[in-house]
């Protein structure tokens, strides 16, 4: 159905009529309500008409997920923007979902705080929380789920709800924020969040350790346990594998740790910008490539790593988080899914990026085991008519 059917009913909604490709589906319009009430009104009418919407923020990760089943419009949070409550004495902030991470970082950074969401600057806060994805600094900063104190949500029916609060410790009722974080907007559209900020570290340093392929994982695991370490990346380049670390904290501890790494592992100083470049690698994916993420416990990391290498994958790991990223060429797509499932073993895997024809008929979220009935029932309970992002999430719900 065309979004024009909603004309005159939903108030101040900017509609862009340029088609956007979402995994092979041309979505003809992008609706940009001015605020959460606007989203609520829009969703209420859209769901009454049996329409489906794909919530989005800055669209940096719009290709993440299974093939959409159907979509009448993209629902953008981009106009919901800004920090409307930030107490530098408290280290928490209330931020609208469409706010870009770089804007938020700049605002709170000026007061000595940092945002514990490690994704590229253009990402929106809503997108970061809806995908639940993170970069390597989650090792030191914690996962997105731990940064969220409260969320404001608009459900498929248009009903607005809130969970959590602005306080840093809270067990008042069920922790629905955990359920919404990482749910890809399938239970409701996130419109604002209370985030717990962290003190910005006084000192940061990056180091680089050249390693032999055979003991790359071992060294990476050893190193990643060090105190003051906020991130560790094991990368493979043409020059061979490298372990990169980023230290953060008070200056004396960071200095001491750096000296120890230089002494014990022949680590070399690197620029923070170089580390940032390596940290960003996880997001890249060529048009003729597939990118997988695997969660494997440390004990199985080395065998998963060598199995994937033998299968011809390009590799990256965040050992402190138990995550491995593997890239395969499209020509090897069929066998890639088999190799990845085998390497993951009892762990988990996701296909984070792939051409849409490869996604056809597959669940890119891997296997949910005995959880599948609960996941389906939750979706049904919150969005029985499959208005929000139908088909895209785990279990193709």
């Amino acid at each position, binding site marked *: 159905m065309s979004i024009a059917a909603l004309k005159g009913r939903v108030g101040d909604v900017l509609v862009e009529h340029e088609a956007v490709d979402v995994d092979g589906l041309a979505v003809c319009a992008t609706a940009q309500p001015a605020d959460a009430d606007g989203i609520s009104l829009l969703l209420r009418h859209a769901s009454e008409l049996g329409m489906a919407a794909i919530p989005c923020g800055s669209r940096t990760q719009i290709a993440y997920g299974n093939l959409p089943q159907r979509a009448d419009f993209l629902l953008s949070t981009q106009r919901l923007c800004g920090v409307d409550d930030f107490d*530098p*004495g*408290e280290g*928490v902030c209330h931020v609208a979902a469409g706010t870009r991470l770089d804007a938020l970082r700049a605002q709170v950074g000026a007061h*000595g*705080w940092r945002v514990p969401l490690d994704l590229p600057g253009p990402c929106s806060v809503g997108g970061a929380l809806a995908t*639940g994805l993170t970069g390597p600094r989650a090792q030191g900063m*914690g*996962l997105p*789920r*731990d940064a969220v104190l409260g969320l404001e*949500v608009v459900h498929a029916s248009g009903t607005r*709800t*809130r*969970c959590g*609060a*602005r*306080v*840093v*410790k809270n*067990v*008042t*009722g*069920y*922790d*629905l924020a*955990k*359920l919404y*974080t*990482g*749910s890809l907007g399938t239970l409701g559209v996130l419109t604002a969040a209370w985030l717990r900020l*962290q*003190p910005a570290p006084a000192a940061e340093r990056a180091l680089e350790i050249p390693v032999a392929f055979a003991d790359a994982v071992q060294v990476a695991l050893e190193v990643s*346990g060090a*105190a*003051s370490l906020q991130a560790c990346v094991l990368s493979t380049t043409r020059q061979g594998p490298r372990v990169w670390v980023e230290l953060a*904290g*008070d200056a*004396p*501890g960071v200095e001491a740790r750096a000296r120890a790494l230089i002494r014990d592992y022949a680590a070399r100083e690197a620029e923070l910008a170089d580390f940032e470049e390596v940290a960003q690698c996880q997001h890249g994916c060529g048009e003729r490539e597939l990118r997988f993420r695997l*969660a*494997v416990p440390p*004990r199985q990391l080395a065998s998963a790593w060598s199995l994937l290498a033998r299968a011809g994958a390009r590799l990256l790991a965040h050992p402190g*988080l*138990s*995550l491995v990223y593997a890239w395969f060429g499209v020509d090897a797509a069929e066998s890639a899914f088999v190799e990845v499932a085998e390497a993951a073993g*009892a*762990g*988990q895997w996701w296909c984070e990026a792939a051409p849409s024809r490869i996604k056809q008929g597959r669940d890119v*979220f891997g*296997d*949910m085991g005995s*959880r599948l009935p*609960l*996941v389906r*029932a*939750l979706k049904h*309970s919150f969005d029985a008519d499959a208005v929000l992002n139908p088909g895209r*999430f*785990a279990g193709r719900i």
Partner: protein
Amino acid sequence: MSALLRDLESAVGIGGCLWRPEELLPYECDGLTLGSQQAAAVVLPRSREEVQAVVRACRRHRVSFVPRGAGTGLSGGAVAHAAVVIECSRMDRIREVDAVDRVAVVEPGVVNADLSKAVVHLGLHYAPDPSSQLACTLGGNFAENSGGPHTLKYGATSRHVLGLELVLPDGEVVELGSRTGFATGYDLVGAVVGSEGTLGVVTAGTVRLTAIPEAVETLLAIFPDVVSACRAVTGIIRKGLLPAALEIVDQRTIRAVEASVYAAGLPTDAGAVLLVEIDGPAEDLAGQVEAVRGLCASEGASRVDVARDDAERQRFWRARKGAFGAMGRLAPDLYVHDAVVPRARLPEVLDAVCEIGDRYRLKLSNVFHAGDGNLHPNISFDRRDADELARVLAAGEEILRTCVAAGGVITGEHGVGSEKRDFMGLVFSEDDLDAMRRLRSVFDPDAVCNPDKVLPTPHFCAEANPKARGYDRVPFE
């Protein structure tokens, strides 16, 4: 013997099923001793299979059931009214400890402190440390998302649970989460932790083990009053310091502690003490100690001592940890309140809380997780005095309302249980609560698992005083 009891006995064996009135007595309340309820029976399963058999028996007989750990909960979450109590204390094995993966797989009946004891030789510990850790079980901790003094830096239970094995209210088993904590689909571990035993019975958990910090410093600062100690806490947070713990003990508590076996040698004329623990890389601590010392001094601390050794550290902590025990000397009953406010509002809220206590003529003292803004106003009273009991309840409600008005919430770690169920409307709208009901109905569509807890019946008027109900059943000795 009823058909239900016969089925329960065949599920758990004869020694595993209690039903005589005198056997049920210890189960008529938990750590919240204001009221009492009579369970239908108590079962003590030894395995997941036995839990499943019990749940299925309950379903056949249309009886609801209530999971229970050690019964130290402070919100009436483990009490059962005509329901079957599933006590998990016999499921107390640590199934696995893996120092490489830094995880332990535990059964729900493992006592919190026993897990840390079992892994200390590996240089590891289980970080969540509720003050009740010598008695409370991990199953109870998972259910309450328990916190402790070190939650400020390390997070509450939720941050340390990677996976759960859960017997659903229909008797089926699901595996939630994973050994790495990452799992596809919704974060069901996140939803079940803190669900207060209403979504099923946890029969195992995979938890994160954390390295014991390289170095620790413990400071004890003496303040003329509790409000200036709160200001020091606000200053420490504003400065960007992240201590492992920031705990305040007020004068009335200090006096109770000093008069008890927990005496720590604190000056009884001090208005409040602030306990600060800092941990991390050894090189960083000296600077942080000086920063904390300076901030305390500038807020009027008359003395700031740094523990010279482990014995002194233990002594400092005794003042904090012995507080609840010491309070037992003040009156027959202790009502431990639990609410949270934004940390920057601590000074004014503490002022208001003390004013409320005075106005109701109550023995109110404070010992609390100041760094998290988590207040524990404790009221010592005698429940046989009906007038005092009424004042305790009225003051409690006023304290909750004060905290909510300051941007806070009605519980930070003890849970809603049956105690605060009817105050949920102070914090959440009916639509907010309805979203929570949706979650619950997915796990427990027939409302048989720990019913009447956490969520108020729809459209309950928060103005009513919930505590007024059920008091005729308070057992007077």
